[in-house]
């Protein structure tokens, strides 16, 4: 398996990167832990890869996580992310993959997009045309489909500051540790109630009221590994357990 030919650019500035991304067939390359696998299998055939992971403008700061921040650097950033991180890929991929890259890839079973939706984060997009911000809830449109336009780069994903009185919990069910989740759950229990975000079940992360979980409200997917009925059962059992854990963790 070899990728089809493409050109490679390591731009010196964000401006140069955005200029290059405006051309047809250009794609941003950060950690590459999803994209290079797709190149190897020729599921992606870009004309140009723009390597953005070295750009100092994309480091971000604190809870505004820039596109150049690797997943292994996220420890201690937010209690929910800390709980989810051991489930994200593997030790050997987190060293290279980025937070923003996972959000851009938008795999329905991915843990980090799920956390961003659970927390009500925001996605900052940049292009040669300008900048805009999209709420996480509106960003994910379908499997591997997002509100990002072709020429746009996720410059940063911003998370709200952790609430010291809130309880956070994360659980997932996968065939083996590090495999794609059959179902993943992120729960936030605070003064407003409990938000339960569910990943891997529908085509995008879905937010439910954690105190009134209705598994039938989710358009659950069937696939080779699990049918829709099993996934809804996981929502009922493991989703509920995640909510209880978040409630118990509340200060």
């Amino acid at each position, binding site marked *: 398996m070899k990728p089809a030919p493409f050109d490679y650019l390591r731009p010196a500035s964000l401006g140069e990167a955005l200029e290059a991304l405006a051309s047809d067939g250009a794609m941003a390359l950060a950690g*590459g832990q999803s994209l290079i*696998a797709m190149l*190897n299998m020729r599921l992606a055939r870009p004309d140009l890869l723009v390597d953005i992971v070295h750009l100092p403008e994309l480091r971000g700061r604190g809870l505004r996580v820039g596109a150049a921040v690797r997943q292994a650097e996220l420890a201690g950033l937010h209690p929910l992310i800390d709980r989810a991180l051991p489930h994200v890929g*593997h030790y050997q991929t987190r060293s*290279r993959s980025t937070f923003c890259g996972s959000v851009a890839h938008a795999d329905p079973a991915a843990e980090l997009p799920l956390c961003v939706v659970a927390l009500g984060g925001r996605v900052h997009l940049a292009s040669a045309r300008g900048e805009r911000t999209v709420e996480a809830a509106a960003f994910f449109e379908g499997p591997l489909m997002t509100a990002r336009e072709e020429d746009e780069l996720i410059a940063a994903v911003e998370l709200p500051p952790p609430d010291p009185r809130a309880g956070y919990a994360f659980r997932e069910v996968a065939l083996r540790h590090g495999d794609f989740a059959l179902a993943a759950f992120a729960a936030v229990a605070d003064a407003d109630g409990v938000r339960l975000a569910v990943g891997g079940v529908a085509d995008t992360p879905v937010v439910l009221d954690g105190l009134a979980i209705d598994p039938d409200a989710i358009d659950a997917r069937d696939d080779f590994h699990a049918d829709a009925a099993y996934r809804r059962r996981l929502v009922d059992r493991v989703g509920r357990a995640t909510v209880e854990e978040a409630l118990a963790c509340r200060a």
Partner: protein
Amino acid sequence: MPRMTVNGEAVDAAAEPRLLLSDFLRHTLGLTGTHVGCEHGVCGACTVLIDGRPARSCLALAVQCEGAEVVTVEGLEEGVLHAAFRRHFALQCGFCTAGILMSLTAFLRETPRPTEREVREVLSGHLCRCTGYTPIVAAALDAADA
């Protein structure tokens, strides 16, 4: 022409953009200790160190490693980890071994006193179809104790 160091030596060899680091190491540099299994980041056989961090070399382009320090199994010094692998028979066919040694080298440097659970989490990024992992876990914990 990515310029990087591989096992401490400066390398300056031509690589077209689509050349994977795994193929650059094996075919261009002749460092065949790095094994290639699945070529899409699942099996862990091709794991090397890039700037001290473990990485699948099949999920890295050679050109991305411009300016990086790459270490392969050929660059590891014989030490307690190798000895522990021998003592515990932590390999049979050996295909996965190079990648596992690279991961454990980075991991034990960061986490000198790991729990069995932590070792198993790291090893979940590697497929071994011979050993059942038990002797590999034992070797890792033994090496950490040494």
